[in-house]
């Protein structure tokens, strides 16, 4: 067994377990924490597929920013009474049906689509585009202006947040 296979089994195991744990927890904060773990494991899987940029954005955007937003919303809204949603009749059947449909679709794609052995040049180019090297080079040459503009955008946003957070002027 190569190292890659071992890592794949490890990450895939974590991802599968945490996703099941996430949907079965009744405490919504704990469910959200399992979701973070799941995102982290997915990022590991992306890395194994040589999609480095996707892995990094997965960690920064999903596991970082969006999860913080989730937790804030959960803590602000205190959704205790949301538990009653599980008691709606037919809800579970509906959820199972949706999940089963998605599973069949993915399984069909994986089992019956053409083998990944013979990769067309287009696909190869898109695989290469996902590496940090390519993205970094594009970002600092052809896309340097939008990159810098985005930097100033973030500066303005930071200053704005400071102004809004400060109390009224005396």
């Amino acid at each position, binding site marked *: 067994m190569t190292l890659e296979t071992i890592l794949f089994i490890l990450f895939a195991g974590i991802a599968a377990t945490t996703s099941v744990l996430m949907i079965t927890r009744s405490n919504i904060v704990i469910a959200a924490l399992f979701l973070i773990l799941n995102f982290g494991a997915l990022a590991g899987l992306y890395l194994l597929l040589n999609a480095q940029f996707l892995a990094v954005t997965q960690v920064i955007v999903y596991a970082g920013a969006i999860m913080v937003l989730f937790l804030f919303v959960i803590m602000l809204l205190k959704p205790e009474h949301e538990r009653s949603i599980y008691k709606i009749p037919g809800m579970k059947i509906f959820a199972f049906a949706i999940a089963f449909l998605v599973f069949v679709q993915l399984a069909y794609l994986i089992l019956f689509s053409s083998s990944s052995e013979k990769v067309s040049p287009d696909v190869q180019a898109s695989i290469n585009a996902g590496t940090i090297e390519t993205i970094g080079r594009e970002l600092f040459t*052809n896309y340097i*202006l*939008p990159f810098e*503009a985005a930097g*100033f955008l973030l*500066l*303005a946003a930071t200053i*704005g947040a*400071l102004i809004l957070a400060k109390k009224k*002027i005396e």
Partner: protein
Amino acid sequence: MNFQSLINSLQYIKPEIVIAVVIVLVVTTDLIMGKNKSLLPWISIAGLIVASFFVIEQFSFKAVSSNANGSIGMITADPFGAFFKIIVIVSSIIIVFFSLSSNEIKEAFERHGEYYTLIFGMILGMFFMISSADLILIYLSIELLSLSSYILAGFTKHSLRNSEASLKYIIYGGASSGIMLFGISIIYGLTGTTNLYLLNSFFHLPQFGGFIFWLACILIFAGIGFKISAAPFHFWTPDVYEGAPITITAYLSIASKAAGFALLIRFIKVTFIDSVDASGYWQLLNLIDWKSFLILISILTMTLGNFAALWQSNMKRLLAYSSIAHAGYLLLGLAVLSDQGLIAILIYFAIYAFMNLGAFFVVMIIANKIGSEEIDDYKGLGYSMPFLSFSIAVFLISLTGIPPTAGFIAKLYLFIALVDAKMIAVAVIALLNTVVSLYYYIKVLKNMYLVRPEKEMPAVLVSPAAFAMLIVLLVPIFLFGIYFTPLVNLAKSSIGLMGF
């Protein structure tokens, strides 16, 4: 990889580099000097003057930057962009002087560092909007401009209406930039490029057109229409103009609108042009009927702006609706789709900047003195503040477009362009709109000169700084009203866009 072409392209973004340096300078000066903020306005003005040198240099350029592999890049340098950048710089300098004599801004003394930083954030966004030739950079620059102006609109956080203005602006702005991004993503999906010049060559191919294409272009127009406050994307304008600090209101009504128009003209002309014929009419590609669309939007905008202004009792709201109406006239200049229409737009903007800034400045000075912006409180001001009342009378008459003020010249060139293009019916509608606008402008003057105030007010003197500022704003109104040849010549030499 060859970086030489990238380094060569650096010369096209000199003004933007200067503005970016000023942002960093203002932030660090604010940090080092601590409580002493008196240096900041002067750093800002010095930075703007340095930037203006590099912008004037761009009048002789007609170029587009290039990527590392030599293909067409994202930024252009041409006389058209330089003209609009000069308008932005001049209005920014005037706004910095406004801020020095505004009570509202003086009270927010501790935040002057943030104030000037965000103003320069707006300027950087506007510069990129004016000269960008790529949808990605266009979107980011609009966001940079919007985000800075959202914060500035709620900057003083004094009253409820200030926060209300900021919040309304954020909600409308966020929605419209989301809509615009959706349009851009459709265009990118159809063509695989975001560069306006490459899009133009793609659109020459026969397979483009149809409903989805229409949809994408209308969605992009919605984003730009929000910035220039064209109907039906104008809802934010009166509330934001009323609630924001008046320096920011004046700034939004000139600079932000100028940048929006520059972007709209570049987007339409560069992306959809087929050829320019000998008499200066633009033959657009037969994809979208921009002419009918723009005529429709502009008539809607000016009629709505003018008629809604009739019922306003607050001076800032009145000027907000009047600025919507003026956006309608300017869109009409674009709808002609000719070089002559473009010249009319440039002349209009140069003159509009002075008269609108002037009107807002007088409203600010009067608000400093009497603490009100209501038109009813202006009763009898003609006698207690003779010079201020005279100035606002000149600015309002100029906004209407009556000779010998410069506003007449602006409207004259617009109508000549319309009549030359055989758009008589549209010209008549615009003319009738001007008559309507006369009513609400004159209503203010009537209140100041013909209505007796409830209680006698002592004569109020204008400070020397404000007096000097008013002279600076009044002189061009009369000068361009009588001797307008230099302005027309400048506009004629500034219609060159990169590529055409």
